[in-house]
């Protein structure tokens, strides 16, 4: 393989994982906007997406498109349930307490996944049969294209939803100023619920499309969740554009760095980048530091 071909290969795999990081980062971002907390169960949404898809295909024998839709919907439902059953009834409104409720929920969910699906890796079939495709010297599978295409479509849909629909606009209003939004007659509780459901859907979607490439097990989402968070930080926590840019940047950086560092330590890279960004530009690469009003 020539240097150019190798580069193309790295770019392709970087964009693929980067898309997933972007989807996870968008999930973090949605919940942050609605509630100002970090949802630690975001990675588990990803795991669940893959696991549901696997079960619907193999246990229920459903056709792939139907399984796809149902898997994503199921995770959205779990996201909504998390908000309804754990976040809303909480006595304390302290952000730290709410964050730890999501930590606990994450562990609880993982425990359940382990019981239902076991600890072993599951073989997840790709959305269309694997054939080796070549482009600019990079070898890839149709699944790579599915990941890129579906991510793009999801981002477009999300953008349309926030710009053009009434519910989307209401959610943005709640994010900008919950009190004013409530005074305008917007049901803020409902919008928070929608944010969790949407974050669940994004996580589930990421899980359905990436697990045929990586692997599928009950805790596949843990590392992905962390990297999605790193991406969100990289792009300036809370910004949608930042989340997408951060995800792609992290995916590419990681992929290129694997050429230099041993792949066993690949996961270190995201963490080092996260700390470095926090050190130098806590507002993220695209964000800017805000002055707090007292």
């Amino acid at each position: 393989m020539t240097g150019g071909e190798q580069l193309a290969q790295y770019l392709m795999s970087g964009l693929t994982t980067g898309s997933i990081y972007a989807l996870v980062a968008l999930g973090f971002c949605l919940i942050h906007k609605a509630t100002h907390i970090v949802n630690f169960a975001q990675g588990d949404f990803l795991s669940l997406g893959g696991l549901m898809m696997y079960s619907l295909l193999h246990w229920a024998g459903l056709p792939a498109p139907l399984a796809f839709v149902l898997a994503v919907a199921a995770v959205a439902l779990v996201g909504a349930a998390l908000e309804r059953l754990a976040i809303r009834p909480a006595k304390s409104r302290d952000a730290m307490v709410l964050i730890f409720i999501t930590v606990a929920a994450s562990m609880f969910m993982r425990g359940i996944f382990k019981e239902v699906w076991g600890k072993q890796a599951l073989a997840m079939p790709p959305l269309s049969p694997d054939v080796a495709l070549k482009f600019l010297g990079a070898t890839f599978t149709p699944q790579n294209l599915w990941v890129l295409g579906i991510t793009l479509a999801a981002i477009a849909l999300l953008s349309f939803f926030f710009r053009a629909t009434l519910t989307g606009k209401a959610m943005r209003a709640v994010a900008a100023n919950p009190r004013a939004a409530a005074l305008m007659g917007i049901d803020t509780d409902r919008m928070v619920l929608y944010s969790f459901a949407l974050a669940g859907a994004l996580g589930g979607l990421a899980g359905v499309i990436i697990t045929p490439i990586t692997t599928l097990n009950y805790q596949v989402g843990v590392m992905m969740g962390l990297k999605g968070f790193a991406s969100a930080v990289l792009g300036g926590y809370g910004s949608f554009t930042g989340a997408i840019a951060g995800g792609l940047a992290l995916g590419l950086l990681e992929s290129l760095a694997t050429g230099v560092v041993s792949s066993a330590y690949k996961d270190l890279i995201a963490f080092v980048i996260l700390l470095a960004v926090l050190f130098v530009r806590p507002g993220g690469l695209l964000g800017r530091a805000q002055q707090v009003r007292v």
Partner: protein
Amino acid sequence: MSRGQVFYLQMGCLGLAVLLAPLFMSNPYYLNVLNVVALNVIAVTGLNLLIGFAGAVSLGHAAFIGLGAYLSGMLSSIWGWPPLAAALAAAVLAALVALVIGLPTLRLEGNYLVMATLGFNLIVGIIMLQADQYTGGPSGLSGIEPVRLLGMTFSDDQSFYWLAWAVALLGLALARNLAASRVGRGLRALHDSPLAAAAVGVPTANYKVRVFVLSAVYASISGSLYAHYFGIITPRTFDIFRSVELVTMCLVGGMGSLWGGFIGAAFLTPLPQALHVFDQYKDVFYGGLLMVLLIREPEGLVGAWRRLRPRFGPKATGRPA
């Protein structure tokens, strides 16, 4: 009675209980459990300082325990250092690592430290598994020397019991001294209102970092003792689950209350031993317990106690509703 006197009275009672407990232990296995309780008390006390004072939570304390355990174990078994010197060196390294993680993240809201420490825990796990020429990989590091001090060897359950509990009680006393001091007041003030604390001269970011470093040192010491006691350590002992377990112990007892942490550790440590089925379902159990607790009783057992018995205890009037 002043609060200081109350604390030392409580400490005295606990000390007495520690002295007498072995007399009632027919089965050395129970001593083993008590030893693990002591080790957890050490780590939880440190973590509690962080939660109660800096208002920040670490999800990577198991990694600091692991750092203490592996470094101490490697230094003593591979390079032949005396266990105590190895433990000291491990504590220094844990402090440095905590400094590197804490400096950038503790200036920001709590979220960032939680994620950074979670990431740190995953990374430490990866290194423990991958760097197998030093760490022994998945099967772990074995043949670690016991602690020797003043001609005594702390290798069996009984002798280690004294060592572990002496360190645990000392750790509690030191933490309490800190809480009752100028620095401790500054830290508690910072938890209530960072703005007002800064206005009276508390260097808020600096103090948070220092408390984080201190809590990492507590964890590292707990880990080093663990390694020299059991003689064998594996990566699984120091995974994220362990970190969540430690946080749960802090929260079950009561956020930021030193005795609360003690109660949490004493209550939750023996559970896996008591319930055999427990091991398989521990994530569901801990996750569920922590969730219910945080939703219903965010101030933990100590908070519930204060609320239910408003006329009892040194902090009789409790917190505002």
